């Protein structure tokens, strides 16, 4: 750690979904069992006093704080050597920032506006985890500590004061949000999944993560589901649910609050008369039906039954897209404010003492 804080600067070298597709990211990303080795070599780089590695499925980023004179090229060389990839290939699929732009970049990452799914909150947890890891290894010092603490604050500000996280964009989460608007707590609503397609899995995951204890799965065959290549009973087991015999689900409809069909069957599995019969047994309690199958499995006239809400995949996708659009509209506003915050924080970090070292160098041709 250098004694003179004023002469320090920040650097970041990274690759993300913006600049590299999945295959490229796989080459650059660091395997979990190599992290220790990577850190020991990284912290030994001459002039680099603090460092932190953020390694997720969508981005690999190395943050560093250094004394004046440190060349960010060293980070580039170290990563290309470590991953045994061509330096030019890495240059093409990576970006580099220094000084204030590192602060701005981190703010955009933690707030979720740099994420593939704009406004998602998972990234904040991943950054926190990476920061804790760096602290445990004693490779993060005053500069990076301050930078990341401010990054967490910026993320909180962005989520509280802008609409970047407003509305759900994941199909499973959209279904949960709709269920919440009908039943209140999702954890109290009973979910029946007919079939075991990808949407069904996504919905079950979303319901499960919100504490739903009553998930039931049924399928035409318990041997194999052509959509997900999973057995319904396996799916039930995975999400701590129950498997129901396919011959029983028609007479059990009234027990469930949310029913999702996701099968490859070409015929109607839930008729209007079956729903009317079910609603007679639960007249004042609403029923939420989601038809995620193509061709559809739920009779369209079911929507006319009082207290029944029928959605198909087009409806759910439309809501997800609307939410995404409204998030995108907020991104620019959020970015502008975060940029101003970054300038202020950078000035505080450098005590107005060092001349701007905000040299941003994006080695990617278009980024």
């Amino acid at each position, binding site marked *: 750690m250098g004694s003179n804080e004023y002469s320090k600067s920040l650097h970041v070298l990274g690759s993300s979904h913006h600049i590299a597709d999945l295959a490229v990211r796989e080459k650059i990303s660091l395997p979990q069992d190599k992290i220790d080795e990577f850190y020991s070599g990284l912290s030994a780089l001459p002039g680099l006093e603090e460092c932190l590695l953020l390694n997720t499925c969508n981005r690999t980023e190395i943050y560093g704080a250094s004394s004046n004179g440190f060349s960010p090229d060293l980070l580039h060389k170290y990563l290309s050597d470590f991953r045994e990839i061509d330096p030019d290939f890495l240059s093409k699929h990576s970006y580099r920032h220094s000084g204030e732009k590192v602060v701005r970049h981190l703010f955009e990452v933690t707030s979720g506006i740099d994420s593939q799914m704009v406004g998602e909150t998972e990234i904040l947890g991943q950054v926190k985890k990476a920061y804790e890891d760096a602290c445990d290894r004693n490779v993060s010092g005053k500069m990076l500590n301050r930078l990341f603490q401010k990054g967490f604050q910026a993320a909180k500000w962005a989520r509280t004061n802008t609409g970047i996280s407003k509305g759900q964009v994941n199909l499973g989460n959209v279904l949960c949000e*709709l269920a919440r*608007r*009908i039943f209140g707590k999702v954890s109290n609503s009973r979910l029946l999944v007919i079939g075991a397609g990808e949407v069904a899995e996504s919905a079950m995951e979303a319901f499960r993560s919100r504490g739903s204890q009553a998930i039931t799965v049924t399928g035409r065959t318990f041997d194999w589901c052509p959509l997900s290549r999973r057995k319904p009973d396996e799916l039930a087991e995975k999400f701590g649910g129950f498997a129901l015999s396919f011959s029983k689900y028609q007479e059990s409809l009234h027990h469930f609050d949310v029913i999702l069909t996701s099968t490859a069957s070409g015929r109607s599995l839930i008729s209007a008369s079956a729903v009317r019969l079910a609603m007679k047994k639960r007249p004042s309690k*609403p029923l939420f039906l989601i038809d995620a199958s193509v061709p559809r499995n739920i009779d369209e006239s079911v929507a006319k039954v009082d207290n029944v809400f029928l959605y198909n995949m087009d409806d759910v996708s439309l809501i997800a897209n609307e939410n995404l659009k409204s998030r995108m509209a907020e991104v620019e506003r959020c970015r502008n404010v975060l940029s101003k915050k970054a300038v202020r924080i950078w000035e505080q970090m450098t005590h107005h003492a060092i001349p701007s070292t905000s040299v941003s160098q994006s080695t990617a041709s278009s980024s």
Partner: protein
Amino acid sequence: MNFNEARDLLWIASIFYVFAVGFGFASTFFSKNSFCKQATLLAIVFGFFLQTRGLYLRGLEISGCPLGNNLERIQFITWSLILTFLILRLLWKLNLLGSLCSGMAGVFGIISLINGQWDHPYWMESTYQRLFSDPWIELHASIAIFSYGIFALLAIVSGMYLIQRKSLLSKKSGIWGTFLPPIHDLDHSAFRLLLVGTLFLTLSIVVGGMHWVHHPEYVTSFKLFITLLLWAGYCILFFLRYSNRLFGSKFAKSAISLFIVAIVSMGFVNSKDRNANISSIPVQPRNGQ
């Protein structure tokens, strides 16, 4: 501005309620700033305090519960509405409901204050006698008006139900749908409000009925008919909902319709039998009071 003048206080209270709507909608739809949320509740509480004082001062002027003209009745109903909301607010965080309640209180309050004829100074007339000579009739009137406040809240909750339902059926994310409570909860709340409101109305009719048995000349047949019709309407609505024969949107629409009937009937029903000896008649408020 005179803080010892009932009308001035009621004006300020209405303006506070309007401010509460502004702050409430701002905090719900535009900003998550906690100041707006706090300001909403504070404006409602201040408005309620001023309205209470205004009604208290008017009560002192007329030496009884202020239910002698349209302004007083409307103010008493909105006061009951806000009181019910504040009691519910102690149990649940109901920010949007607060905005809608204060909206109704503000709009109705201002309408009643703007219309000068609705605040006829009956207590200044030489023939004026104490509004309620019998405390039981005063109790009957105040309970009935309080039940109207609960029915007003029921109408607001039913309106919220219909908006949420429409938003869900339109299959769009919609700005309202996200912030309104779930329809299942709204349906339950409406049922409970109907139960409590019907109990209060029944109690007021029992109290009023006990007085009416001894002095039938005090109540016009029309008032009696309308009052019992309204009471029967709410009782039927309750039993239909209780037996699950009426629920969902039809129940919500019925609750709103009944409240409109209740409010409209107030303007047409006069409790005072004009043929009775005026000097011996305690002037009663109208319709179910």
